[in-house]
């Protein structure tokens, strides 16, 4: 009798367990009761919570100044300030770039091969909310030139919790293509998002503004969700999502495990079919079109492909940026053996929240960095001084280094960059590099062609930097001094004296330059090769400056003179006539230039994209 009872109770227990496996026990009981009692009783009420962003934790770039609340990414938190109005307002979050103008410049990085076509993101931001919920909807309030959001992700980590879990998971709620709305008017963007099985209060938005006519501006993000797991999950048969397959990070790490196993399979000599007849190089060529995760999966399929996929020649260029969510120290260590011939490495955006440690990165560098020529490390917050020291030691041939938005990197770390004497391209946008470090870099890296010091607020005196550039870096082609507040006409004069080959110069928001000193005219006369000139928000740009540009800089392609009151239509016409290569002209907020004039000029010069922003 007792065995019977035990059997029965076990049976009963197993049945209950199966029923409640995908839900809590109370929910199971509740729903059973509801079914039993018939239609009259309601299912447990799930309250939908609506939240605005609490804090912007991380982002890749923004238009505004570092201590400001105008056009900066921090405006995305909180309730909307502008919506439903449309226009170019200071209270919104704006990224640094838009359109394809920056990609057309020679200072941009070359595209990496093997970028998967589904990865379009150019910029990102991470927004934390107060309370973790199971998201049911995400609404992005875009107030100007909407259409840039291409991906929304949710994180399983609560950034405000005291004990962060070891396992941090990012789930894609929605992904789409870069878009462009028909009008630049405000809209509420609310794509249908995937149901996920964890509560989240950290969202990540990735954007791509390449199709947009002007800067996109975001006002707020609303996260709607429920506190308890939605009741529907009880009855839903778990669908095997194809995306989940690609989500499993084990594949990259398992490739390493396979190495050990391959030794024991020598006994079986299975024919590889026609693949045995193809020359090695041809299979290499075929395999070279696969993106990196597919490469790793293919390596697990058979010995032949394992040999091909682990061949270092496949890993001369490696872009890990599309896989930022899954890259860990383990992945790096397993890729180590294949990357000995690595020349171009893109690890931008990777490794945050502890996924990659400085030590893991250093060991990867030591093993694979010998032939490295280009290293993209934008927004890599795991970097520290030791990492830069290792880079400086092991990568003597390094020509391109991108540390944009590595704002947690200590100032003394930048001193090591001076050891990379072959540097041609250096991006230090939004870093804490100090004056002494940049001066020593400029002293020892005379081959610099492209330098980006935008929003480097810790450099005290840009005149000194300019004169050092003029003295040491004569082959400079592009210089980005966006928001360098204390550059004066003396510094600029010295700069154009020494760096005659300058083609791109961004002096946006450099408020200390006064046109009355003649500095812009002098610049125009000294730089005949000038192709890009940004004088954004320099309120002193006047007609004579434009006339000098028209007379001397016939190669001009991009010009931004936002916000000046002193430019009239006559000089604009002259400029447009004399610069046949001009493609971008930004005359937003120029009081003498109204929309009628812009329309007229656009009609006369159809190849030029004339931008006139509005605040409504």
């Amino acid at each position: 009798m007792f065995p019977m009872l035990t059997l029965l109770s076990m049976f009963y227990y197993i049945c209950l367990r199966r029923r409640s496996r995908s839900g809590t026990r109370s929910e199971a009981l509740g729903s059973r009761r509801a079914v039993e009692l018939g239609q009259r009783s309601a299912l447990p009420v799930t309250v939908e919570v609506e939240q605005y962003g609490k804090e912007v934790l991380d982002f890749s770039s923004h238009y505004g100044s570092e201590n400001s609340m105008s056009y900066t990414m921090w405006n995305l938190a909180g309730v909307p300030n502008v919506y439903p109005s449309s226009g170019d307002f200071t209270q919104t979050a704006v990224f640094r770039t838009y359109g394809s103008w920056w990609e057309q410049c020679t200072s941009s990085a070359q595209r990496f091969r093997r970028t998967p076509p589904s990865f379009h993101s150019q910029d990102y931001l991470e927004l934390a909310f107060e309370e973790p919920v199971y998201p049911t909807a995400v609404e992005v309030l875009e107030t100007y030139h909407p259409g840039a959001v291409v991906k929304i992700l949710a994180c399983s980590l609560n950034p405000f919790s005291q004990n962060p879990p070891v396992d941090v998971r990012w789930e894609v709620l929605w992904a789409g293509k870069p878009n462009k709305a028909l009008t630049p008017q405000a809209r509420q963007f609310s794509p249908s998002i995937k149901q996920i099985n964890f509560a989240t209060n950290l969202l990540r938005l990735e954007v791509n503004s390449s199709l947009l006519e002007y800067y996109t501006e975001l006002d707020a993000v609303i996260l709607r969700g429920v506190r308890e797991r939605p009741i529907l999950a009880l009855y839903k048969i778990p669908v095997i999502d194809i995306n989940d397959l690609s989500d499993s990070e084990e594949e990259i790490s398992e490739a390493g495990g396979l190495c050990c196993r391959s030794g024991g399979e020598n006994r079986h000599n299975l024919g590889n079919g026609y693949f045995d007849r193809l020359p090695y190089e041809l299979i290499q060529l075929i395999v070279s079109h696969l993106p990196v995760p597919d490469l790793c999966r293919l390596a697990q399929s058979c010995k032949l492909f394992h040999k091909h996929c682990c061949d270092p020649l496949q890993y001369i260029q490696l872009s890990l940026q599309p896989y930022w969510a899954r890259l860990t120290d383990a992945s790096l260590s397993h890729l180590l053996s294949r990357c000995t011939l690595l020349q171009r490495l893109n690890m931008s955006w990777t490794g945050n929240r502890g996924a990659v440690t400085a030590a893991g990165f250093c060991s990867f560098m030591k093993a694979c960095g010998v032939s490295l020529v280009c290293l993209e490390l934008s927004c890599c917050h795991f970097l520290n001084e030791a990492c830069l020291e290792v880079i400086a030691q092991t990568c003597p041939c390094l020509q391109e280094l991108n540390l944009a938005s590595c704002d947690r990197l200590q100032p003394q770390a930048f001193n090591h960059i001076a050891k990379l004497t072959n540097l041609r391209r250096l991006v230090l946008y939004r870093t804490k590099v100090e004056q002494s470090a940049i001066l020593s870099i400029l002293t020892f890296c005379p081959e610099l062609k492209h330098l980006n010091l935008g929003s480097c607020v810790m450099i005290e005196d840009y005149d000194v930097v300019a004169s050092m550039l003029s003295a040491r870096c004569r082959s400079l082609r592009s210089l980005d001094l966006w928001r360098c507040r204390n550059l004066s006409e003396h510094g600029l004069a010295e700069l154009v004296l020494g760096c005659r080959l300058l083609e791109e110069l961004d002096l946006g928001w450099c408020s200390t330059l006064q046109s009355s000193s003649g500095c812009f005219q002098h610049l125009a006369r000294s730089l005949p090769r000038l192709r890009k000139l940004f004088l954004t928000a320099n309120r002193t740009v006047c007609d004579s400056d434009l006339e000098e540009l028209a007379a001397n800089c016939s190669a001009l392609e991009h010009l931004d003179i936002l916000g000046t009151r002193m430019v009239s239509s006559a000089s604009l016409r002259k400029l447009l006539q004399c610069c046949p290569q001009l493609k971008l002209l930004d005359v937003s907020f120029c009081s003498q230039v109204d929309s009628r004039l812009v329309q007229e000029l656009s009609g006369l010069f159809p190849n030029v994209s004339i931008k006139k922003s509005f605040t409504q």
Partner: protein
Amino acid sequence: MFSVLSYGRIVARAVLGGLSQTDGRDYSLITASCGFGKDFRKGILKKGMCYGDDACFIARHKSADVLGVADGVGGWRDYGVDPSQFSATLMRTCERLVKEGRFTPSSPVGILTSGYYELLQNKVPLLGSSTACIVVLERRSHRIHTCNLGDSGFLVVRGGEVVHRSDEQQHYFNTPFQLSIAPPGAEGVVLSDSPEVSDSSSFDVQLGDIILTATDGLFDNMPDYMILQELKKLKNTNYDSIQQTARSIAEQAHELAYITDLVRVAPYLRFHRNENEAVRDRSTAHSVGTDSLADETSFRKTFNRQKLHKTVFNVRKLHNLGPLYIACLCNVYPSHPCFQYGIKPDEGLYQRISLGLFRLFGSGKS
């Protein structure tokens, strides 16, 4: 100038009287604002708390309540610049700073400095200038921190008496200290004071104190005793009665400053010139009280409004006047680009901020 008036009365969160002075609770302000712009007849509506060229804001943060007023300098109108744009944008920016917590309660100068810095970060090329007065109530410590640049200001009234007031900051007559953004090339000519030259003060406050912040439109037109009279009528601490009081003060000031036709200054003022030193120019021998307008345009001095009140009332008392219109013309250095005032005697209604007319009611005919 017409006034913007904002008004706060300190009450503890848990209302009801009898609270001791060693109250550990956080204080907060109950506020109301009212004002009139000079364009009231045209019915120009501006967004938010903007009255004519003046603007104000009230913002709350968890650690502090903040009031602010800014008086746009009207001389910019001559140069095609809307003077209200600067003051309104400054106040809105300061409001945003407070709401987002980007300020230190004990340093209202910081709010002004950050607000001014943010104005420069705007893509829109702002021009103009304004005075500013910021009052911060720190909830926990029951202290008020203030910062005043220019001739706007505040009063703190306790028990029917003024216990604190701000000082006017002027360069010369009708030219207060001001924050400004000048057109390029004019930086040397246009007055631009840095937020650092503002007057700061800090003091303790008690429950029931009344804080009144206003632009010079109030203080120029309404003497203290009249303001105090109105404030005495405030019995309750609810929003409605405070709003009512603010409105009545603003209306009275508005009436007192009512502008009508310019009338030749009565000769009896000249009679009083020697006896009442108040209207004598210190540096030159000019004074109010001449017949022709041309002389009056060269009149410049540091103006003391309290003494003018006294003069006016003295005159009335002595001569039992009928309706008397006295024009105080305040014209400053004509070469100063911001402050050139021309007087057009045939204009029925003056738009100039330089004019303040006092209408006296007497028993005789006009």
